[in-house]
C-alpha cells in the first residue's frame, strides 16, 4: 500500500493541515474564477437571446425592443436595473413605432410558480400573445398551458378589459373570454389569473396610451435596426 508510510508517520502539524487546505482552496478558487469568467459572456448572451425571442413571440410584428424600468413613478428607458425595480419590455416595429409592452408576470400554478411573459397593446387594451417561461405543471395535463397550441394561440387579440375570464371549452362568447383546457382547468385559470393580476398592477403604472417612451437613440421616424 502506498499510504502505509503515511499511516505510520507521526501526526502532521496543524500548520501543515491548514496549509494543505488553504492551498487546495486557493487552487479551487482560481479554477472557479477562470471558468466563471470564460463562460460569462456566453451565458449572458444566451439569456439576452432567450428574452428577445420571448418578447418577439408575444408581440407579433416587432423588430426592436428595449427595457423599460419603472422608476419613481415613470417608465425609464435604461439597460441597468436594480434588483428591487420592476421592468417591462417595449416592442417597436420596423419604423420605430410603438407596438406594445411585453410584461413579465409570475404567480402560483397547480404545482409551483408559473412564470410567463405576455404582450399587451395599450391602444386596443388587448393581449397580443403569451409565453410560459417557467412552469412545473403536471406533464400531460397542466403542461398543456404551453404545449397546447390552441390554448397559447387564444391569447391573441384578447380583450383584457375588465379582465380575462377562462370559461369551459367551447363556451367562449365574448372577446375577453378564452377556452380553458379540458382536464387542466386549474392551470389554465392560474395563467389567466396571473395575467389579470399583473395587468391590474401595471395598468396603474403605464403611461396613457399614445405617450409611450420612444425607441432610444433614434427619432420616431428612422429606427436604428431598420434599413
Amino acid at each position, binding site marked *: 500500500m*502506498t*499510504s502505509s508510510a503515511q*499511516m505510520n508517520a507521526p*501526526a502532521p502539524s496543524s500548520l501543515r*493541515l491548514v496549509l*494543505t*487546505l488553504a492551498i487546495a482552496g486557493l487552487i*479551487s478558487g482560481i479554477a472557479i474564477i477562470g471558468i466563471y469568467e470564460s463562460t460569462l459572456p456566453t451565458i449572458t448572451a444566451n439569456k439576452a437571446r432567450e428574452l428577445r425571442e420571448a418578447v418577439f413571440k408575444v408581440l407579433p410584428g416587432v423588430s426592436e425592443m428595449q427595457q423599460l424600468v419603472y422608476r419613481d413613478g415613470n417608465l425609464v428607458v435604461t439597460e441597468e436595473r436594480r434588483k428591487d425595480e420592476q421592468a417591462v419590455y417595449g416592442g417597436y416595429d420596423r419604423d420605430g413605432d410603438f407596438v406594445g409592452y411585453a410584461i413579465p408576470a409570475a404567480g402560483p400554478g397547480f404545482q409551483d410558480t408559473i412564470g410567463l411573459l405576455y404582450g399587451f397593446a395599450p391602444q386596443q387594451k388587448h393581449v397580443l400573445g403569451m409565453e410560459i417561461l417557467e412552469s412545473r405543471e403536471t*406533464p*400531460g395535463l397542466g403542461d398543456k398551458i404551453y404545449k397546447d397550441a390552441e390554448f397559447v394561440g387564444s391569447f391573441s387579440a384578447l380583450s383584457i378589459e375588465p379582465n380575462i375570464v377562462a370559461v369551459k371549452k367551447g363556451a367562449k362568447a365574448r372577446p375577453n373570454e378564452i377556452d380553458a383546457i379540458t382536464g387542466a382547468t386549474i392551470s389554465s385559470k392560474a395563467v389567466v389569473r396571473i395575467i389579470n393580476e399583473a395587468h391590474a398592477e401595471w395598468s396603474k403604472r403605464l403611461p396613457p396610451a399614445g405617450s409611450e417612451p420612444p425607441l432610444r437613440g433614434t427619432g420616431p421616424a428612422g429606427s436604428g435596426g431598420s434599413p
Partner: protein
Amino acid sequence: MKQNESYEEFIKGIWRDNPVFVQVLGMCPMLAVTNSAVNAIAMGMATFFVLVGSSFLVSSFRNWIPKQVRISCFIIIIATFVTVADYTLLALVPKVHKELGAFIPLIVANCMILGRQEAFSSRYPVRLAVMDAMGMASGFLLALFSLGAIREILGDGALFGIDLFGENFEPWIIMILPPGGFLTLGVILLFFNWFRFKKDEFLADVAAAERGGNG
C-alpha cells in the same frame, strides 16, 4: 497482466459493482432527473466528468494530503469540478441546464463520488484510479440512461424526443412524475437481485455436480 488489472477495475463498475443497481448509491440524481433519456445522459456525463477528474487529482496528490483533512480536500476538489460542470452546461446547453436545475450543484452530494475517492483513488496509483472512476461513472451513466429511456418510452412514447409509437400512444404520465422513478428503479433492482439469485443458484448447482462427479 497490468492491462488485465486495469480492465478489471474498469469493468467491475459497469456490472458487478454497479454503483446504482448493486451498491444503490447516488439515488438523488437517479430518481430526480431521469424523466427523459437526454436529461439522464446529461447528468451522467456531468457526473462522469466530475468523478474522473476528481479521482485523477485525488490519486495524484494522495501522498501529499494528510489523512486528517482528506475528506475536506476531496470535497474541495469535487466541488470545483462540479462548479466547472455547472457553468459549462449553462453556457453550452442552457435548455438542459434548466431541466436539471438544482441537481447539477447537488452532484457534489452524490455519495458515489466521495465514496470512490475514499475507498479507491486515495489508495491506488493514478492509472488504476482513473480506470476505476471511468468504470463507475460509466456504470452510473448506463444506469441513468436505462432508467431515463424506460421512463421516456412509457411516459412520453418517445426516445430522445423522437416519437416511437405514433399519434395514438397513450402516455403513462406517472412514469415522468417522481413516483415513476421509484417504480422503475424498484423493478430494475428486483430484476438485478433475481438475476444474481438465479446465478448463485446455478453456480451452486454446477459446483455440486462437479463435486458429485469427482467423488
